């Protein structure tokens, strides 16, 4: 019994001790360091930073270790820590066209200014288990001999190349500094604007976004997407402190950005042209940003006057269920005792069965 009348307290303490032991595993095997996680499980770190909404590789690595590799648990740890941090201000929008590129591909043009840069990708690996990774037999991999593509040159966005000809909708113009919504500071209400939708998707569960993005490709709210561009690299973050009144750089972060180019038949107000779906995440999160861009475009159905028929287009459905920390909490809360309510239901079922049996008996007698 996990709770008798007394004893919950000691049971909890014992469970925590057991958990620590399980986390450590066989003590004969050297303990994993957070540096190893930070350097060698980088994509896990990136996912935890993105969905945890906190750019800190060391804290993400610590969370992954503490969570025994359960990434949603790690995201939860980071989020809980994040809510204790004071909010100094909001950074200026990052300039991704000034990104120091590590990877940049476009599926819409064979070649383009800035070039196609494959970068570190699983894409063309054959998924064969590599035995040489066992026991560190592979050693240190050699460095590829080539210089970074764009040290100083701006690499223009593919969408901007199309934009010159008016073939794609322009990015919405905003006056700087435009107020940006923040769902961690104000409760989300519907209908939500695109800034809040994108924030929600950026924090949202990769698995959910993947499934929803996939569903649009299979016809549930089809958006005819092309991967206009996916880029990965470092960008500078700037802040304008109120007391200074000018921008100061805070440092660089790695982000992945995806712009989907989608067909649009046009309406009475706007000519046929391509539309955009946008995805952005901390670190290298390609699957996440591509899915995000698909779902972002699907969620623009209302704005573009498209019929809302599929789950991925349904803003309230998507945004209410995208957060895996919320979702896992509520699903897992079913583990908590519910015996008071269950008792009430037991009483009701017993009563209803009595009534049913009486009715059966009466019917038989007649």
């Amino acid at each position: 019994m996990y709770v008798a009348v007394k004893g919950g307290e000691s049971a909890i303490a014992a469970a925590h001790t057991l958990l620590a032991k399980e986390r450590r595993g066989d003590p004969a095997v050297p303990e994993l360091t957070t540096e190893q996680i930070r350097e060698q499980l980088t994509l896990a770190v990136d996912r935890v930073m993105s969905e945890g909404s906190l750019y800190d590789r060391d804290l993400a690595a610590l969370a992954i270790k503490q969570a025994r590799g359960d990434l949603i648990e790690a995201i939860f740890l980071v989020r809980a820590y994040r809510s204790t941090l004071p909010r100094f201000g909001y950074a200026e929008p990052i300039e991704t066209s000034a990104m120091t590129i590590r990877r940049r591909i476009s599926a819409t043009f064979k070649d383009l200014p800035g070039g196609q840069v494959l970068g570190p990708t699983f894409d063309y690996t054959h998924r064969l288990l590599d035995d040489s990774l066992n026991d560190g037999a592979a050693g240190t991999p050699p460095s590829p001999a080539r210089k970074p593509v764009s040290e100083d040159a701006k690499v223009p966005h593919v969408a901007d190349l199309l934009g010159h000809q008016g073939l794609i909708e322009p990015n919405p113009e905003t006056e700087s500094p435009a107020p940006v919504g923040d769902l961690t500071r104000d409760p989300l209400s519907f209908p939500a604007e695109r800034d809040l939708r994108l924030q929600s998707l950026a924090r949202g569960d990769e698995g959910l976004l993947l499934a929803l993005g996939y569903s649009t490709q299979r016809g549930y709210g089809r958006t005819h997407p092309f991967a206009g561009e996916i880029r990965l690299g470092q960008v500078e973050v700037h802040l304008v402190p109120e007391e200074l009144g000018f921008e100061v750089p805070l440092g660089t972060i790695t982000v992945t950005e995806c712009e989907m180019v989608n067909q649009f038949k046009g309406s009475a107000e706007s000519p046929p042209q391509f539309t955009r779906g946008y995805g952005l995440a901390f670190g290298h999160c390609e699957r996440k940003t591509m899915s995000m861009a698909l779902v972002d475009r699907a969620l623009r159905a209302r704005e573009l006057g498209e019929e809302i028929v599929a789950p991925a287009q349904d803003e309230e459905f998507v945004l209410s269920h995208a957060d895996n920390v919320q979702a896992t909490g509520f699903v897992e809360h079913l583990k908590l005792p519910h015996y008071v309510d269950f008792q009430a239901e037991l009483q009701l079922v017993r009563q209803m069965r009595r009534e049913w049996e009486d009715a059966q008996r009466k019917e038989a007698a007649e």
Partner: protein
Amino acid sequence: MSDAATYNFGYLDEQTKRMIRRALLKAMAIPGYQVPFASREMPMPYGWGTGGVQVTASVLGADDTLKVIDQGADDTTNAVSIRKFFERTAGIATTTHTSEATVIQTRHRIPEAPLREGQILVYQVPIPEPLRFLEPRETETRRLHALEDYGLMQVKLYEDIARHGHIATTYAYPVKVDGRYIMDPSPTPKFDNPKMDMCPAIQLFGAGREKRIYALPPYTKVVSLDFEDHPFERTKFDRGCALCGSEGIYLDEVVTDDRGGRMFVCSDTDFCESQRAAPNEAGHGLHEVPR
């Protein structure tokens, strides 16, 4: 990071508490109305009382005495966990005695002992919207509340009666607050609903995941929904507690063996213990408990 000293009193920073207190004041001013608030991520999972914890953190003062119950008991695992959280982050006094507590955080029960003025009862709420299972869209339910359009709920209760001969809702039984808003009393058994009516204590409801706060100021009229010819009926047990003998209180069914053995005991462990300690002093014992 594990050092409690680095956290503010009650975990939340003062700005966040102020934001929550504003929501609480608004909620008190419009009894039963769900006030959106910018719920924070807490170090316990959503769905495990984060709304209640944030409300409690915002109302606690250094001289408060806190009681935490889950399913009526002080020693259920989650109650222990939340009580420890506040011991650690606020360093306040805690108790298991209803009468000694100034703030009581609860999940799914209202204590059997009557509450008094000056006490605050904080409910943990999973789904604050009483119309949610009739209408899943928040945009739509907010409109229904605004227009006081509660036909859906009336039809649901009527259909229950048509099908079963009685209203088949045993917990989270909807109430009407001060003649205006329909409110979810949190998943407390309907047995507890009458205790909400004209209660001298402040009742605050926090739903963290759903980001809503609502409240019942002291002495607010709270009516369980019913029909004239099918009045609200409180759950009745045909026996008393096997341990303390009290009747007219809510009982837990404890399975004692695998041959159908059952035992019924008080769900409110503090009440049960105090009855056994002084059966006559409190004036209850084998008698009916006043609501």
